[in-house]
Every structure is written in structure tokens, then in C-alpha cells.
């Protein structure tokens, strides 16, 4: 269970350009299932996701992860937590150009000091499961949109993190690829992973794999379902 209680986030706090992106959000996210944050642009979905994923600390309020408070932790702690607990797929995928697919997938494991052979084996396994094994040694810039996304998913899963976080994963995909993505998500859910997405794509929100939807508006939660 990931719980947020009365969480607010203000960017550029104390400066004239301060923006409060989230106002007193209270929310529980189940550890089994697929949760989607939906809402219009600028409603604070990405901000909420970054707080849930230990990317940033809330300005006020508490976040607990499986009962452990994480909102007050030093950044160093938070980073480590993020590395082992969360995998991220970004809106623009953010693979590093010039590196091969395999190198990109292995990157999140670099700071943990694991045996490189073990990491590589795990990365190859993920790539294989996502149908990218034969592209492993290609540079990422030659991949197609769907392949890029799958490479990004493989990277998010390489540390065996129990929670997968994806920001607008289907924004640039056509219907076929969106369905393929939903299949992957369903597979992960069945494997016991927690998946948290943001989207304003009705195809996602109405998908059968989705177990909970959180609707946002102007930095506030307006409705939760599931």
C-alpha cells in the first residue's frame, strides 16, 4: 500500500514564481493492480507521480510506502529506495542516445555494484520477454516508437522493482501499439507488480487491466474509482 495523506507540492517555494501543483491530496494506492491518474493537462498528474515514485519530496503532508514513512527521508536514502522499489517509464522515454539498447537497459543497475554478468543476464531476459532481444546491441536512436517504449519498459524493470511507474505511456502510440502496451501491463499485473500510470487516453482508462482510476483537477483529487 502506498498512502498519501494531505500531500501538497509547491514549486519554487517562497519565490514570486511559486506554483502549487498539488493541494492536500489524500490517497491510497493498492500494491496489486493497475492505477491510472487521469485529468486535464496541468492538473498535477506528473507531479503526483513524481511524489509517489520518491523523485521529489512533498512540501507538506506524509507519504508512506508499505507503512514506512518516506516523505522526510534524505535524498540519498530516497534515491536508493527509488532504485530498488520503482521503475520509471517517462513520457518521452528518455533513453540515452548513442548507447546500445542493452547498455541503456543496464544503466539503473550501475550504482548498485552488482555483478555485471548477472545484470546483463537479467536485462537480456527482459528484452527477450518484450521481443527486443535481437535489437539489444543496436543504438537506441534507430528504434521505432513502439520499440523505444518497450526498451524503456525493460530499463524500468531491470532492477526487479515491484512498482512500475509510467507517465503518459501511450501518448505517441497508435491503437495497435496501445493494445500491445496494455497486454504488457496486464502481464506485469499478473506477475504481482504494482503499475501506476497517468493518462488522458480513454482507451487506457476503460481498459480491463485497469483496477483503479484517480481523477485530478487543478491539483486536487476529484474522484477515485476502484
Amino acid at each position, binding site marked *: 500500500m502506498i498512502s498519501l495523506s494531505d500531500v501538497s507540492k509547491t514549486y519554487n517555494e517562497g519565490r514570486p514564481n511559486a506554483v502549487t501543483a498539488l493541494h492536500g491530496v489524500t490517497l491510497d494506492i493498492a500494491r496489486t493492480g493497475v492505477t491510472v491518474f487521469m485529468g486535464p493537462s496541468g492538473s498535477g498528474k506528473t507531479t503526483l507521480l513524481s511524489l509517489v515514485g520518491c523523485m521529489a519530496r512533498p512540501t507538506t503532508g506524509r507519504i508512506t510506502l508499505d507503512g514506512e514513512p518516506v516523505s*522526510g*527521508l*534524505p*535524498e540519498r*536514502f530516497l534515491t536508493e529506495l527509488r532504485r530498488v522499489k520503482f521503475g520509471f517509464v517517462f513520457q518521452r522515454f528518455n533513453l540515452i542516445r548513442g548507447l546500445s539498447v542493452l547498455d541503456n537497459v543496464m544503466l539503473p543497475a550501475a550504482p548498485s555494484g552488482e555483478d555485471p554478468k548477472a545484470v546483463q543476464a537479467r536485462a537480456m531476459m527482459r528484452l527477450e520477454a518484450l521481443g527486443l532481444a535481437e535489437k539489444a546491441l543496436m543504438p537506441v536512436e534507430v528504434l521505432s516508437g513502439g520499440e523505444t517504449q518497450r526498451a524503456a519498459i525493460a530499463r524500468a524493470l531491470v532492477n526487479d522493482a515491484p512498482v512500475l511507474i509510467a507517465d503518459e505511456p501511450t501518448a505517441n502510440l497508435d491503437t495497435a501499439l496501445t493494445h500491445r502496451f496494455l497486454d504488457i501491463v496486464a502481464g506485469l499485473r499478473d506477475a504481482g507488480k504494482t503499475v501506476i500510470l497517468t493518462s488522458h487516453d480513454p482507451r487506457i482508462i476503460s481498459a480491463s487491466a485497469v483496477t483503479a482510476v484517480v481523477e485530478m483537477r487543478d491539483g486536487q483529487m476529484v474522484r477515485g474509482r476502484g
Partner: protein
Amino acid sequence: MIFRTPILTLLLVSALAILVALGAAWFGQRVLRQWDLTSGSRAQLLMERRTELISTLFAMVMLAEAVALFLFVFNADRMAALFVGAMCAVGTLNVNPYGFPALYAKIGVFFAAAVWLVMDHVDRLGRDYPLTRAKYALVLAIAPLVIVAGGLELAWYLGLKTDVITSCCSKLFTPANAGISDEMAAVDPALALWALAGAQVLVLALGTFAAKTGRGHGLFALAGAVFFAVALTAMVSVIALYVYENPNHHCPFCILKPEYGYIGYAFYIPLFGATALALGLGAVAPFKRRGSLRAPLPPVLRRLTLWAMAGFAAYGAVTLYAIARSHLILFG
């Protein structure tokens, strides 16, 4: 004199060290006043990130200072050829009254920095910054030392006049000359060797105990400091005699010369390294029971203890080697 490459280099290192020490001290006082891990504020976050910068810079400059200490002595030895009456580093250091104080200050900086680096290393093991306050309190003490050392060094180099007739080791380390150096020289050789053996046994025994049980690092540090003092006394009183194969030459600097195969470095590098590690261990031992360190600290303490013991043992081994190789017979 200032236009000598090693001198320019040493002054550069000192200047950088002073800059970094000042910056670190400024940040240190802020840490002591404002550090609050429980606050999630942006200011605290930025301060946490800044500790990474200060640690990196400080570690870098202090490693350079350790190398500079070696260069300092080496260069003093080389410059002996420039001064009438100087045979080794002692003569050069004696050219004006700032030489020896500069050396002692630099040694002080070396040990303080080593303690700090050990603390920094341990601090990074725990995720909740367990030693950060202590570390920055220490920075406030180290900064003035670094400045004093740099100042003395500069004063010494500026005061190096080649027309000065200086006095060297043959005058300094003799019973005829009053002072601590002659007292060290006057210690009975047999007594000095026994004391060295005793200190060696003590330090290794305490080290073994600390490595085995994970306790008693404070005592080990103390024993290390005692060993350091005894080792230097033994060097002046008897080991030097064996190295030079001359019953009257007590100088602890001439052994750094090429004529003696640079054997001095084989003595001093392990001795200084081990003592520095031991002191560092003593400084971090009180933090063993901190929650975030309980798991990661013991293996690191053990490893550092073993390294320190290896250094102390190396000093003893090199001593035995020097005695065995020597043609000088002092006893029997």
C-alpha cells in the same frame, strides 16, 4: 628561492587547500547551525547536496596534501646542496626558524585530514548522514591548522637565503645539543628496541582484538599513537645507526636519501599511513551504535583495522630487515 618548481607546486597545493578549507569551514558553520534532517525543506535539500561537493573537494585537496608532505621533505632534502652546512633536509629546514614548525604543521594537517577522510567515508555508509555534524565540527578545527601550515610554509620558503650557514643533523641529533631531538638520540638503544617491540606487540594485539570482536577501536587508536612516538624515538636512537652503519649518526631524515636506497620511505609511509588510519578508527568508533551504521560499519572498521595493523607490522619488518642487513654491531 621561491622560483623552484617543487616550491611553486607546494605553494599551489597549500593555496588550494586553504581555499577549500575556508569554503568548507564556512559551510561547516552553516551545517552546525541549520542542519535538520527531519525538515524536508528546499534549503535542507540543497545543503545535503552541497555536502557532496565539500566532501569531494576536501578529499581531493587533502590527498594532494598527503602527497605534498612527501614532496615537501623530498624537496628539502634536495635543496640541502644549496646551503652551506646542510647535508639533508634537516639543514634546509634549519635555514630559518619556520622550517621545522612548517613540517610539524604539515604533519598535523596530514593526520587531521586522515581522520576527517575516515569520518567522511563512514558517514557515507549510513544513509541518514550519521557523522555529518561531527565531520563539519572537525572541519572548523582543521581549517585554521591548514592556514597556519600554509603560512609557515610560505614564511619558510621566503626566508630561504643561500648565504645563511645552517646547521645540520650531525649537530642537531647529538647529546651535546639540548632539546627534544637530542633526548631522543640519547635514549639507550637497547631500551628503545625493547620499547619498540613492546609497542608492536601491544598494537598488534589490540588490533587483533578489535578486528575480532569489533570493539576496542579507541584503545587501538591510542596504541597506534604510542607506537608512532616509540617508533620515531627508536628511529633516532637506534634504527638510524643501523641504517647508516655508524654509531653516531642519528638523523631520521638522511635515511630518505638515495644513498640509503630510499629506505626511509619504507619506514615512514607505512608508519604514517597506519597511524592515520588508527586515529581515524578511534574517531569513528563512538558512532558504532548509530542505527544506520550498525550493519555497514563493522566490516569497514575491520578492514581499516587490518590495514592499519599491516602498516604497523611493516614498520617492524623493515626495522628487522635494516638491522639484519647492517654491518654495524651495537650489542654483544
